[in-house]
């Protein structure tokens, strides 16, 4: 299945990109497990994932949300708006 990952805030500097589209093995992949996949691709994510929240298609989700083909998953680091 195909999942697009979008990096927000400082994460896009850490990984050196705004977004990437990944081809992942079909089957039940949770968004928390996607984080592990991404950490292997981007060592700079090590030590940061525990403070990252996930949104899928414009809704915040828990780490056990099961990804679907075509999902857009956003990695949201600690926020600093206001």
């Amino acid at each position: 299945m195909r999942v697009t990952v979008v990096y927000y805030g400082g994460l896009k500097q850490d990984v050196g990109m705004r977004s990437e589209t990944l081809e992942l093995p079909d089957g039940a992949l949770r968004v928390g497990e996607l984080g592990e996949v991404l950490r292997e691709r981007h060592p700079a994510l090590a030590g940061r994932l525990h403070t990252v929240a996930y949104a899928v298609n414009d809704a915040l989700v828990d780490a056990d949300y099961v990804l679907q083909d075509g999902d857009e998953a956003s990695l949201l680091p600690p926020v600093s708006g206001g």
Partner: protein
Amino acid sequence: MGRWITSEPLALEPLLRELDDPASGAVVVFLGTVRNENEGRPVRAITYEAHERLAEQVLSAIERETVERFGVRGCRIQHRTGLLQLGEASVAIVVSAGHRGEAYAASRYAIDEVKRRAPIWKEEHYAGGESRYLDGVPLTHTAED
């Protein structure tokens, strides 16, 4: 210009007009502005980035909660994105209420929740040309969002 997130300069008058209400006796406005210093470092500008669609949901939810919790007449929140110069407003919150006590309390609640829950990030630009994303507040997934 989005209702909650916009890249244009924030304008107070339209928000005040939206909340015009003959049953209101008190209006409290909060503006967050770009300050020339943070944590001891001279700042020359700030770039704000938002997860726009999610941020619009969150700001809209904070508006509703603010009205319900404090019994105020109305609440409008707008946050700006893009590169902001010193003195420019990054966020505007307008609360109208029957009386001033609840107007102040509601306004304070709304800005605190924006800082805690809105998926928005700031990158500070310093005098030397360097820039930095600030450490912030980890988002949590709650039913309210």
